[in-house]
C-alpha cells in the first residue's frame, strides 16, 4: 500500500502537467482561429 501511495504521489504531477498541456494546446488553437476569424494579430 505504501509503495502504491508513494508512486502515486510522485507520478500524479506529470499526469496533471499532461492535462494542463492539453488544455493550453487546445485553447491556443482556438486563439489562433479566433484571431484569423477577426482578422487581427494573435499577439
Amino acid at each position, binding site marked *: 500500500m*505504501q*509503495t*502504491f501511495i*508513494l*508512486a502515486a*504521489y*510522485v*507520478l500524479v*504531477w*506529470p499526469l*496533471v*502537467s*499532461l492535462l*494542463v*498541456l492539453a*488544455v*493550453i*494546446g*487546445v*485553447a*491556443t*488553437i*482556438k*486563439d489562433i482561429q*479566433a*484571431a484569423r476569424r477577426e482578422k*487581427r*494579430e*494573435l*499577439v
Partner: protein
Amino acid sequence: MNEENFYQFSTLTVLILLAAFYGGTYLLTLLIKKKKENTDAFMVSNHQIGFGLGAASMTATWIWAASFYGAATSGYTYGISGPLHYGLWGALMILFIYPFGRRFRELAPNAHTLGELIHARHGSSSQLILASSNILGSIISLMVNFTASGALVSVLSPLSFQAGVVIAGVGVLSYTLWSGFRASVLTDFAQLMAMMAVAILIIPAVLFALGGPQTLSDGMSLLTPEQADLFSMDAILKQGAPFFVAVLAYAIGNQTISQRLFAVREDHIKPTFITATIGYGAIVIGLGMIGLMALMTGMKPIDGDMNNLIPQMVSMYLSPVFIGLFFILVIGSLSSTADSDLSAMSAIVMADVYGKNIAKNKPDPTKMLFIGRLTMIVATLIGVILASFSMDILIMLVFVGALWGAIVFPVIASCFWDRVTNLAFTSAVIAGLLMFCVARFELLPMAGFIAVLFELLAAVGGGVVLGLMTFGFCGRRVGLIVGALSAIGLAFLCVGFLRDYTVLLASLMAYGVSTLVCIAVSLLGSSKFDFTQIDQNVINYDPAKTEAQA
C-alpha cells in the same frame, strides 16, 4: 566541481543544442516581427491575448531555473512535504493576484505597468518606489537565470561558466529585442510546450531508472521522522510559511505578472491565471520529486551543493537523450523568464520613467521604443556581469519577497480605499522596509520587550496576509473579519515562539508595520480620491489607437 560525476556533452553538441534552441526561438519571432513596432504592443501586446497563450505565457514566465533547483532542494531537505512547500505556495502567487488584477484592469484598462496606475493614484514618489522594486526584482531574476545557464553549461560540457552566461544573455536578447512583449508571449508558448513535455517524460523516467516504486518504499527508512511526515512542522516553518507570506508580495512586486494582467483579454483573466496556477504547481512539484527521490536513494549532492541534485540524478540514471532533454528544459525555463524580465524592465522604463516622469504623458513613440530596446541591452549587460556572483537561490527568493511585502498593503489599499494618500503610501513602505531590516539582520537584541513587540507586529502582518487573500475572493467584510481574527489568533501563537524564525518574523513585520502606518497616516488626512481619474490619466501611447478610442 567534480565533473567526472556528470555526463559530459562535447562542446559541439552543446553548441548545436543551444543554437537549435535560440535559433528556433528567433525564427519563431519572425512570424510576428513588424518593421515598425508600436509602443503599446511592445509593452502589452493588444490587451487581447487569449486564454491559451496567456496561460502558457504566465506559466512559462513563473517557472525559472530556480524553480527546479529550489523545489528539488526542498524535497531533499524536508522530505515528503518539501516539494509541496515550494511548488504549492509558488503556484498560489499566481492564483491570489488575479482578483486584484481584475480591479487593476477595471481602474486602468489602458495601463502597461502597475506603476502607471499608482502614478495616477498618488504621483511620482509612490510610482517610482513600485517601479524601482520591480526593476530590482527583474535584475535579480536575470542574474539568477544567467547564473543557472552558466552552471548548467559548465557542468555538462567542457565550455566555461562565463560562456554559458554570455550565450544565454545574447540568445534571449536576440529574440526579445525587436518585438518586446509580443515576442516574449509567443516564445513562452513554444518554450512551455517543450518544458512540459520534457517534465512529463523525465519524472517517471528517473523513478523507473532508480528501480521503480519499490525503491521509494525501501528508501523511507533513510528519512528522519520529520522528513517522513507530510505535515512536518520543520518544513512548514522553514520552507512553507516564508513562501506563504511572500505569496502576495511576489505577485505585486513583479511586473512580469502585472504585464500579463494588463495584456490578457479581460474576461480571460480568471481562467488564464487558474490554469497557470495548476500548470506551475504540477511541473515544479513534480521536478521537486527528483530531490525527494535523491534523498530516498541516499545520494549526496556533489560538493554539498544542492544545485547539483537534479543534474546529478539525471546524469547518473538517465541516457544521453534524456540528459539533452533536461538541458533544453533548464535552458527553456530560464530563457522564458529572462525574456519576460527584459520585457518587464523595458515597459517600466518606457512607461513609468520616460512616459510619466520625463515626457509627462506626451512621449515620442519612436524615442520611447528606442528607450525600451536600450533598456533591454543595458539590463542584459548588468545581468551577465552580476551572474559572476554566487548566491543561494532559496534564501534570496525569501529575502526579495519579504522586501516586496512592504508594498503589498499600500498598493492594494490604494486601489480600493479612497482615503490612502501619497504620504501614507510612501511612509508605510519606508517604515515597513526599515523594520524588516531591523528584524531580518537582528539589529536589535531579540529578547524581552522588543521581541514581544516584534512578534505582535508580525502577528498583525500574518492577519494582513490572510485578510487580503480572503478579501480578494470573498469581499471586504469577510476579509476584515478573517484578518482580525487571524491577527488575534497569531498573537497568541507568535509571542515567545516566532523570534527563533528570523526570516518569517521579518517578512511578517514588513506587512504588519506597513499596514499599520498606511492606515494611521491615511486616517490622519481627510482627502478622498475619485477613482475615475485613474482611467483618464493612464493612456495609450500609440497615436492610432488613441484616436480610434477617442
